[in-house]
């Protein structure tokens, strides 16, 4: 019956050769009046072997890098470099050294903006880097976590440039809202240096959350806030002391003393291999609020406290469940 319908409608069929033959008999299509032209036979390209393919790809990559043939977004994010050069070694640390377990990744949206708010710890902010990998590797298509950093990060040579190239930007309302409006996942650590540089005895105690600028940014753009709790990062460099005069001299927020640093010199820079858990909590919606609420300190502080409490409770729960600092 389908055939008859097609004949009546005189649709040039694409289905089966039988159909086509019948069709040609009844209605000679204008295509048939032309001499049949076969496509130029192409020699089938030999399948390059794996090594060759890789070599060619490597040269292609090198050529693009050397001639500046790659795209950088307005924040300076160089996706090609991040994906191919920066992420692979960090992923090794993620998988082999810290054996990170990402939990609740289904709470990461597949598209659209979201603000990821996490606790901060570890003397050096490795927790943000690992969270970035957890986000990238547990979303499909892979999404990049665009982190907001203190201005100090961008003042430091090499680090500042690397931070920009991997998609990070200055922690300020303008940049945060711009990224969120563009539908990016934005990471923020509201404790700042107070969190990352707290001493070992205060581990897993959330510090003050600042002025709640991150809540204002989320309210203005109406994106959800995803609370993230990182367990394991506190133990990588246990900060047992702080040489304040040296920190002041160098312009650092603190100069850490750990059991291995500065005692063992550069060897002290190797983090202890603690087992990490990164838990992504349920998104807290902000689109039910009015964007004008971003200027209402009461609402901002309430939301900020809600996020803080959620992270703190999750931290305690995870700590109670973990079998050991290094085990797992």
């Amino acid at each position: 019956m389908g055939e008859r319908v097609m004949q009546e409608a005189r649709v040039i069929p694409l289905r089966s050769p039988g159909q086509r033959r019948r069709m040609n008999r009844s209605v000679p299509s204008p295509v048939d009046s032309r001499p049949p032209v076969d496509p130029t036979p192409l020699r089938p390209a030999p399948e390059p072997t794996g090594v060759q393919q890789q070599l060619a790809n490597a040269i292609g990559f090198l050529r693009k890098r050397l001639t500046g043939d790659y795209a950088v977004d307005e924040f300076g994010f160089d996706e090609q470099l991040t994906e191919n050069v920066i992420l692979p070694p960090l992923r090794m640390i993620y998988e082999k050294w810290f054996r990170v377990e990402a939990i609740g990744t289904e709470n990461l949206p597949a598209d659209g903006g979201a603000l990821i708010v996490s606790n901060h710890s570890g003397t050096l902010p490795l927790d943000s880097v690992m969270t970035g990998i957890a986000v990238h590797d547990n979303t499909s298509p892979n999404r990049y976590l665009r982190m907001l950093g203190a201005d100090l990060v961008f003042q430091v040579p090499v680090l500042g440039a690397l931070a920009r190239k991997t998609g990070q930007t200055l922690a300020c309302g303008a940049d945060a809202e711009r990224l969120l409006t563009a539908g990016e996942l934005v990471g923020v650590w509201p404790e700042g240096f107070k969190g990352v540089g707290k001493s070992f005895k205060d581990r897993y105690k959330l510090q003050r959350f600042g002025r709640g600028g991150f809540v204002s940014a989320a309210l203005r753009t109406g994106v959800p806030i995803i609370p993230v709790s990182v367990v394991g990062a506190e133990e990588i460099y246990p900060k047992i002391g702080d040489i304040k005069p040296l920190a002041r001299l160098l312009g650092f927020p603190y100069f850490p003393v750990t059991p291995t640093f500065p005692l063992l010199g550069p060897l002290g820079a190797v983090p202890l291999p603690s087992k990490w858990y990164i838990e992504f909590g349920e998104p807290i919606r902000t689109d039910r609020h009015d964007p004008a609420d971003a200027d209402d300190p009461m609402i901002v502080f309430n939301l900020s406290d809600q996020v803080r409490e959620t992270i703190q409770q999750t931290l305690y729960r995870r700590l109670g469940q973990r079998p050991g600092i290094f085990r797992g």
Partner: protein
Amino acid sequence: MTPKVVLVTGAGGYVGAHLAARLAANPDIERVLGVDTAPPAKDLLKTMGRAEFVRADIRNPLIAKVISSARVDTVVHAATTANPPGPARRTAIKEMNVIGTMQLLAACQRSPQLRKLVVKSTAAVYGAGARVPAVCSEDMAPKDISSGGYAKDAVEVEGYVRGFTRRRPDVRVTTMRLTNMIGPGIDTVLTRYFALPVVPTVLGYDARVQLLHPEDALAVLERATTTDLPGVYNVGGDGVLTLSQAIRRAGRVGVPVPRVAMPTAARVFRNARVVDFSDDQIQFLNYGRVVDTTRLKQDFGFTPRWSTRQAFDDYVHGRGLRPVLDPGRLAALENRIRRTDG
């Protein structure tokens, strides 16, 4: 409202002269006057058509006489420079920027026929530094402005323009903040910088650079002159190049210089009379600057034809800069490996 008589300051320079030429080509405009202390170069003068060149100094109160006697109704202030291409006397440029603007605005204020003022400003007013947001929009306050450079002049000039807007609310004032211009025909600090055989960069930093093709700069200034769109607008091409990327695209070799040694390096280039690095130029090479052009596109109704990358590539081709490493050879090698039978 199409203006009747337009006065363009800085007509001896690239932007001023070309803008005067463009306006002179518009039959609705009765008269175009170009003002500068020195006449434009011969080839520029030829393109200016019926535009008249008046040799006058805007730092001199006599400029008021020019404006009133010609019954000027629109003034385009294109004489300020935030980044002079070559070595120049700091005080002379500062005087032209600041005193020139003050005198010009004083003359404008006393002119009853004046209806419109267009100011060519610069995106340098946002400053450059670690504390400056990644993308600057029009209502952001300047941050990290160096005290020794010309960006400070631009901030002061815009301050005077705001004062003028308050005192003469009947005059429509349009301020265009242009990003760094680059193109084959124009001589700017960046065209000289990228043409250096070895390009000094700040060690450990990679600035984000947003560029503007001179054609777009002229088109946008012409539109600001012939239409009534008061306000402040950022002007820049779409997209961003990092400094290292731009150097590679131009086929140059970048030489990283530690930040502390940068002023010394700048002095060497300055003394060799090659290119002028002011303090804010070094800051720019350090951190770069990107502006938000949403307002330009939506409210002003202008989308730059050249993206940052296209403007830069046009400059590279126009100047005939040859890359050190031929990308064609690498591409050929890549293809050969892909093709060879296993």
